[in-house]
């Protein structure tokens, strides 16, 4: 028996497509962001409020991933910006090939900001680079404070944690400071924004974050 060294990433093919996408996004000055959370944490709601706040003509587009249905694309298309649904037909995450296929026919030169809403899942999307500039993880206050510890991978890879549904804080035992401390025990420099898509408290900070990112990737 001989042992030979073997090099390379296991998901080498995905990494290659993701690197090509990243280069394309950079060439056209597109800020691409990958939104990841459990099902029901409010990814689509956050995007609805975000699109709603943009002036017509804003150069924004959305890819939204789900296992089945185009319900999210229908929700998001109302705001008049380009939206495409990626239906994974069973796959629990988006991969770089799906994103590349979904972008076909779109002129990236006309887009400054691309939201990629991943399939609701805190585990599988962690492993698949989509060529995004940043990953964002959403955690709603109706989930557990310990989620960052249970699903460390995604909190480790995300630069921003958005705590959603904060209008429900009076009714649930969730302590934001504990959740934040847990997230920072995994990734000390993770940024945190707390907001409610119902009352819009904290929403301004989210929009400031988005605009700053768009500017720095232009």
């Amino acid at each position: 028996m001989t042992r030979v060294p073997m090099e390379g990433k296991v998901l080498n093919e995905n990494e290659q497509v993701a690197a090509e996408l990243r280069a394309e996004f950079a060439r056209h000055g597109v800020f691409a962001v990958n939104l990841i959370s459990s099902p029901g944490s409010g990814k689509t709601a956050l995007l609805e409020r975000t699109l709603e706040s943009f002036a017509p003509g804003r150069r924004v587009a959305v890819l939204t991933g789900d296992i089945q249905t185009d319900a999210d694309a229908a929700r998001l298309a109302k705001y008049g910006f380009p939206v495409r649904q990626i239906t994974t037909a069973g796959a629990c995450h988006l991969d770089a090939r799906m994103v590349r296929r979904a972008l076909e026919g779109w002129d990236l030169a006309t887009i400054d900001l691309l939201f990629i809403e991943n399939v609701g899942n805190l585990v599988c999307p962690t492993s698949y680079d989509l060529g995004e500039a940043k990953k964002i993880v959403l955690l709603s206050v109706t989930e557990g404070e310990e989620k960052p510890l249970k699903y460390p991978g995604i909190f480790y890879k995300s630069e921003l944690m958005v705590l959603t549904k904060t209008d429900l804080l009076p009714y649930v035992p969730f302590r934001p400071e504990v959740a934040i401390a847990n997230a920072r025990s995994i990734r000390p420099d993770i940024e945190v924004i707390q907001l409610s898509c119902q009352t819009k408290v904290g929403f301004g900070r989210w929009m400031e974050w988005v605009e700053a990112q768009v500017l720095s990737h232009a």
Partner: protein
Amino acid sequence: MHEMGIASSILEAVRTETAMHTPARARKVGVRLGEMAGIDANSLSFCFDALVKGTDLEPLELAIEPGSTDQLEFAWLELEEP
């Protein structure tokens, strides 16, 4: 459950690597897996064994070694000369 896709990627790479060492056969592949990679080692082993079973790669084994943070990389391949 994305471990099936990952196991399938490992097998594909093993086939490619083994082809470069013909006529040797691959017996065991070593992969480094970090704690932050979002992959369950037991689940990956289960999927790997399920995919190998009944194919020409049998009895190929998977060895998972601890890796750094989100590492998911190949380490080595054990080959058996005919």
